């Protein structure tokens, strides 16, 4: 017979024969006529003798309606101070004319002028295009390389442990350091890549490759460095995903004599989908806000070939000191990110539901 073992929030784990089955609380109560303890307060079974009276006991653990809010208060206060307040303040700044270098200019309300200025600025659209294009390219390449590496590590390899450490190094380094290292590697006349690569290309009669001074090549150089830095992350996530795939479908496919290619597309890829989605979502969010890499390697140049939204924003706000326009940019950017994350969360939810 089924009997409730313990209750966690709205779900209860039942020991049902051998395995654990999660069922909703109401179902259990209907089935067994036993009131589950999910709502029971987590308080001392018998009141301690010297329990303090007054306001402290009303806020204390014996009051399950208030106590969680007491526990959460410090977090919520800090997040409000550094998360919500700046947001509201950004709304205020974007509605006025604030120029940081000229505090004596009287501030007045300008309505939606700043947003209009942003929308009409061709540099904004070029920055948005650069950001999206950079994110899409980098995440696409990282995904396939990471998946490929993870699949290679599925085989039994000699020295897999030590190789894994070497492969993960770029991810451990601070983003700033990764950017500095590659600035060094690509520096004309000093770096390893320019020295040895330049030797090869000169022998072929192409001359030196302008890794960071040609607009198109500089963009691809940045994508390359991002791929270098974050493919290990994809590798890690894909390895974890692959490790959680059960073996049975593969055995069935082996009996049926399916080709490796077919096994990959019909078994591995569908079963890996939840892990893939999470990894791609995290990487996309991070690639979208890449900052150190671009500032260190190209400062958005040459021209504005590598100016992403982040770089455009900091240039406007803290180099040209046009705080109001920068605030408007950041609000537009937030909107883009909110839309993006809603799409992602929806995709994640539907995927994980189908995976269950």
């Amino acid at each position, binding site marked *: 017979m089924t009997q409730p073992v313990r209750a966690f929030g709205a779900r209860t784990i039942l020991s049902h024969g051998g395995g654990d089955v999660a069922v909703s609380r109401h179902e259990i109560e209907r089935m067994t006529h036993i009131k589950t303890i999910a709502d029971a307060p987590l308080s001392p079974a018998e009141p301690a003798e010297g329990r303090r009276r007054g306001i402290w006991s009303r806020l204390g653990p014996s009051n399950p309606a208030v106590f969680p809010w007491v526990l959460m208060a410090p977090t919520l206060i800090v997040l409000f101070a550094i998360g919500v307040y700046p947001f509201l303040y950004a709304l205020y700044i974007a509605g006025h004319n604030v120029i940081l270098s000229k505090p004596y200019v009287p501030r007045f309300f300008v309505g939606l002028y700043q947003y209009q200025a942003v929308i009409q600025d061709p540099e904004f659209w070029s920055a948005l295009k650069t950001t999206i294009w950079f994110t899409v390219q980098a995440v696409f390449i990282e995904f396939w390389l990471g998946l490929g590496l993870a699949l290679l590590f599925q085989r039994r390899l000699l020295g897999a442990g030590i190789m894994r450490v070497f492969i*993960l190094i770029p991810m451990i380094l601070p983003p700033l350091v990764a950017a500095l290292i590659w600035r060094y590697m690509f520096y004309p006349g000093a770096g390893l890549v320019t020295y040895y690569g330049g030797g090869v290309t000169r022998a072929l009669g192409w001359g030196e490759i302008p890794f960071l001074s040609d607009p198109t090549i500089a963009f691809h150089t940045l994508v390359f460095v991002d791929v270098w830095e974050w493919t290990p992350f994809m590798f890690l996530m894909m390895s974890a995903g692959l490790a959680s795939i059960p073996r049975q479908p593969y055995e069935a496919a082996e009996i049926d004599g399916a080709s490796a290619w077919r096994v990959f597309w019909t078994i591995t890829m569908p079963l890996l989908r939840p892990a893939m989605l999470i990894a791609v979502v995290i990487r996309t969010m991070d690639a979208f806000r890449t900052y150190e890499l671009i500032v260190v390697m190209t400062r958005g140049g040459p021209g504005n070939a590598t100016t992403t939204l982040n770089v455009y924003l900091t240039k406007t706000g803290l180099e040209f000191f046009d705080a109001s326009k920068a605030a408007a940019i950041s609000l537009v950017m937030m909107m883009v990110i909110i839309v993006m994350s809603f799409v992602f969360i929806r995709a994640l939810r539907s995927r994980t539901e189908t995976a269950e």
Partner: protein
Amino acid sequence: MAHPDTSIVSPDAPPVQRNWWVYLVLAAVCVINFLPYLWMVMTGFMDNATATGQSPQWVFTPSVEAFRFLIFEKGIMENFLNSLVVSLASTFFSVTFGMFCAYAIARYDFGGRDDVSFWVLTNRMMPPVAVLIPIFVTFQTMKLLDTLVGLIILYTAMQLPFVVWMLTGYFRDIPRRYEESAMVDGDTWFQAFRKVTLPLMAPSISATAIFVMILSWNEFAFATFLTSTEAKTLPPAIMAYSIGANISWNVLGAAVVLVTAPLILFVLVLQRQLISGLSQGVIRK
């Protein structure tokens, strides 16, 4: 030791790979991933003449010229100390606050719980640069620019969503009945929390703390714009000292050694705690 060859292998595990091309590809990947960092570290131990030479010198007599320059002429140890104070303090506060918040979300079924946990997470989605302008202006008016306190508050807030998110999952994995039985034995809530829940959570909490500390240690964008002389941390200091009008590569290399040494040491020393903390769930069920 978690060596792959000594781990338990199921009977149908594939034989050890002997295709040479697999190893060739992996060796190339290892070299590409490790060599740039190695070269940067080597450059840090070159003297100026070697570092600026026409061709890369793979064999040279090591020198501490660049380190001496950074430490005695630029006073980089002060920045090192700032970084240490800021990351330790912000880790302490974010883990302490976040721990209680995560506990509340994991253990209590109160109205609006899902909304709160979602709201906490959305704070993480914002690109830091997007809130840089209002925070800069706020710090300016509150006289928090270029102070360690300002950075500590900021980093605490930045890391809290991550801490709450990680620890909520771990708290859910710890059976509630352990605490309940402690309270039946007459302990107050806080005693039960301290004596039963915290020790069980220790590996997860320390793993989370390590991650948070590394993130604070590496933070660059805010540190660049919110500090100038007094509270400058290591990452912006590296930019200021080594990327000037003319870059001295050996100084840059030495700075990279200084900023990554604690990370590498940390990861090497605490590797086992990290792995055990992340894969906690041993006492599940």
